[in-house]
């Protein structure tokens, strides 16, 4: 099996990393090749890999591309590649039947799989094509107001991002029995190449909805010019939709995700939601509540987790309950330092002082949950968060924002508030802090709900069945040995490989 990850396992902690770890360890009879799409080539492994991981491959997406070939002025692209690129760009712009995004992607892959196309994206010819496509962008009959024309700078910016996002097309596709993409987008793109090249079945799991998170990331408030923003989002829409087309099965982690996938064109017959699960025995409930009224928040410091609303809400709580304490557990991923700094500025501005503490990454989630009276989750986008399940299992009352699959997890065993609404969040916290009986009731309901519905064994069983079905159904099973998958990089793309021996050294021999 090839488990393809992006910006997570085994290099970063978080919900998806927990899920990957569960899958790899829990389905141990299977051997795994982990293909990690990372920012750079030198990231450090943070999660120990088990023995059934035979290989770790990296695809550094944001590494410097060593363009070996001169992009001479006036030099024109290979005609086939030019056609494919033009079709892809026009498909993004117009979404009409004449231009098939998926077919053009495959043509790019087959025409220039050695990575040449990455060089071609730096030519003036490619900029010209992109600019033409951006000018041709249609709005599906929507009333068109005053929209600025795209400029060369817009085309250059978009093409610069494509050069990174399309890099998986330039690396050797995994040659395994099954590709399991842990998210849509770039991870799924690599799995798509494996299907084109070897007919490898593709299983797609989405935790957060990739497209939705891009919409939030590139909102108009991101201050990106409209032309490049809408074209880039058009690309994300096409590529996520193409992945749904290519996938043999889609296993969203919540019914909420299922709705988004369907809205983006996924075939309902392919969608088989599998809720995340945990081992509730890992989360004890014996610890007494702390003395000071304490709120606990667990997650990575990330705009999607909306730490700012948490701080604002806590400021309101503190105004009502002066002795209240907020403990924020979670590390800051590389690239989010600025967001952390903004949060710290807000913390200072609100005068929270020692009452709201950034505790950093914690190794014991259980202790973290038990260090408060209430666990709070403030995300503006979620799939089916582990933090919610774990908090419920630990025997603490939960208040969470009503996003993604959170309501599926909590139902009536916790309190849901609208996202980005610090007033509503604060009110819920104050009410619950002042009502121990209600806290106990919710905690009991939450623990029972996890034990009855969200056990990890159930989740693994579903995946195991799905694996078997997909592998059996594959017309031409892969020929590579299952003991150790060492891929021969037939393409000269930016990929680095770590073998089992290296892994043992890097991770202390696995567990």
């Amino acid at each position, binding site marked *: 099996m090839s488990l393809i990850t992006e910006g997570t396992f085994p290099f970063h902690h978080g919900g998806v990393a927990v899920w990957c770890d569960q899958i790899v360890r829990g389905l141990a009879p299977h051997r795994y090749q982990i293909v990690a799409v990372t*920012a*750079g*080539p*030198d990231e450090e492994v943070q999660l120990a890999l088990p023995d059934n991981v035979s290989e770790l491959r990296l695809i*550094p997406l944001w*590494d*410097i591309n060593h*363009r070996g070939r*001169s*992009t001479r*002025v006036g030099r024109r692209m290979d005609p086939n590649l030019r056609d494919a690129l033009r079709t892809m760009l026009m498909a993004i712009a117009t979404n009409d039947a004449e231009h098939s995004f998926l077919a053009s992607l495959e043509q790019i892959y087959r025409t220039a799989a050695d990575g040449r196309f990455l060089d071609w994206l*730096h*030519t*003036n010819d*490619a*900029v*010209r094509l992109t*600019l033409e496509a951006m*000018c041709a*962008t249609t*709005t599906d009959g*929507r*009333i*068109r*107001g*005053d*929209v*600025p024309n*795209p*400029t*060369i700078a817009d*085309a*250059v910016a978009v093409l*610069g991002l494509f050069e990174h996002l399309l890099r998986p097309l330039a690396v050797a596709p995994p040659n395994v029995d099954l590709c399991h993409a842990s998210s849509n987008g770039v991870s799924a793109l690599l799995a798509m190449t494996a299907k084109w090249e070897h007919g490898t079945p593709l299983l797609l799991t989405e935790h957060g909805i990739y497209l*939705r998170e891009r919409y*939030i990331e590139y909102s*108009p*408030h991101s*201050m*990106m*010019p*409209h032309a490049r923003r*809408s074209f880039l*989002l*058009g690309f994300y829409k096409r590529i996520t939709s193409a992945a749904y087309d290519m996938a043999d099965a889609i296993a969203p982690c919540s019914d909420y995700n299922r*709705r988004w996938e369907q*809205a983006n064109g996924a075939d309902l017959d392919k969608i088989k939601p599998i809720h995340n699960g945990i081992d509730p025995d890992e989360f004890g409930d014996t610890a007494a509540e702390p003395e000071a009224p304490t709120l606990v928040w667990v997650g990575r410091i990330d705009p999607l987790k909306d730490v700012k609303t948490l701080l604002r809400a806590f400021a309101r709580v503190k105004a009502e309950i002066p002795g209240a304490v907020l403990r924020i557990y979670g590390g800051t991923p*590389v*690239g989010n330092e*600025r967001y952390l700094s903004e949060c710290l500025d807000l913390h200072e501005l609100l005068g929270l002082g020692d009452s709201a503490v950034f505790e950093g990454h914690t190794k014991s989630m259980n202790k973290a949950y038990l260090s408060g009276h209430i666990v709070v989750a403030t995300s503006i*986008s979620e799939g089916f968060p582990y933090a919610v399940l774990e908090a419920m299992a630990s025997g603490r009352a939960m208040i969470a924002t009503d*996003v993604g699959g959170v*309501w599926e997890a909590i139902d009536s065993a916790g309190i849901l508030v*609208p*996202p*980005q*609404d*610090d*007033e*509503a969040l604060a009110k819920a916290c104050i009410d619950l802090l002042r009502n121990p009986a209600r806290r106990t009731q919710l905690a009991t309901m939450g623990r029972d709900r996890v034990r009855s519905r969200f056990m990890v064994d159930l989740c693994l069983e579903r995946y195991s069945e799905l694996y078997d079905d997909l592998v059996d159904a594959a017309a031409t099973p892969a020929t590579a040995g299952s003991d150790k998958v060492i891929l021969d990089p037939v393409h000269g793309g930016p990929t680095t490989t770590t073998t089992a021996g290296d892994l043992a050294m890097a991770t202390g021999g696995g567990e």
Partner: protein
Amino acid sequence: MSARMNGLVEEPNEHDADIHQWIEGITEGTDFEGIDASRLAIICSAAGDPLEIAAALEVAGVSHTVATDRYGRADVFSLAQTLWNRIPIQPTPVVEASVHQPGNWLDLLRGLLYIAPAPMLLALSRGLDREFAGWTLPLAVTWGWGLGQMTAFAGYRMRSRADTRREAEVTGRFLIGSIISTLVLSLVAAMIFGGDLVSISVATALVTFMVASSILLLHQQQQWSALLIAPGVVLSCIVLIAPLGTVPGPMVALFIAGSFIAVLLRSTRHVHLRWPSGMLLGHRDFRISLGHLLHGLLCGLAVVAIVIQGEHLAPALDDLARVLVPVPMLATLGVMEWQLRTFRSRASGLTQTMETMDRFPERAWAQCRRSLLIYLTAISTVTALVWIIAAANGQRIPSSVLAVQIVLGISFLCDLMIVTLDRLDLVLKSWLLGLTVGLAWLAVEIWGFGTAVETALWHASCAGGICVCVALAGCTRNVASTAMNH
């Protein structure tokens, strides 16, 4: 305006003038008092797809349940589709701040900062009344340039990843490494070619100053370099102008060393010095750093081969004429900076204003030519002045010495343009090509024609320099005219 009936919001009809008010109508409910309707309106009017509006609605609190229960829709997507159909696409204009500011007089001042060590070394030599070993300046210029480039790249690389801790550690290691490595190289040079402790100290101080300056430059603190080095520069000028012995030697040494140490100490505020444990740079970063080191070494070598060697070509020249020889190159470093920034700003401006690619390559190349021409005019003018001043003093500086310096100046400007446009590979190839041609020329002259080594070395330097200039100029046109590089 639309009306709210039985908890449902009617869609606006053709007469609805203000669609934004309609959104506010939708979001105005007891459950959603906190919703920022204007924020939602901005997203709706800029959305490129109904799903984008759906995401914005959800973030604003309109979940699936709300869309069905409150607004009577099948789901949030249906509500988003309605908004998509009704709200004209009208994005809020975004004014993009220009990344590249045009060059200005500060660049000219920065150029003066770069050349400051030159008069200081001369003054030190004059003040102490001693010649430094022949290897001192070539070693310092070459090694210092290479390490400075490497330090700057590694620092910027870490900064681009927002990894300030590692940036401080990497630059700290390079700073310490530059001191130790220069000491070792100087000792080896002294053992082989001869030289005293003063020469070793001078070489080490100069390299350390160059690396420390690059750290301050990385932190946009060139003004500190200028301020701290000013006492040394002022005293150096006095020493060079006043009769010999006016300023006591120890005082000269104290001021100049003090200036260098001050810059070094200032730079240590931005570095984290600790005992090294493991590699801070990844393999790939390290490899690119080595590329920048090589680039700096080759640039330094070119200066040694053409400018410093040129000074010694005509032993008949008096002190003034020898001092004048490197002036064209040194005095126009500021112009180089100014034109580099101006070109980048203008080329970037073209990409932000042009809406077709039809004339971009020629217009970008025209901007590039303009900057090259301005620089050429500046260095030619200074060269002519140098020649005239020397001639007025009865000295005749060989014209080839000055002409090749102009060629080198143009090469450096092309080099800077290409490197800042992220094509170090092309620059390295050009310099290596020049080096190869120079070495081949040297071999042919010495072994083929029996030319004296000194003469052959000068000819080889000229041939290599011209070759580099042609190669870099050729690359500059391609690189400057490629839109993706801006």
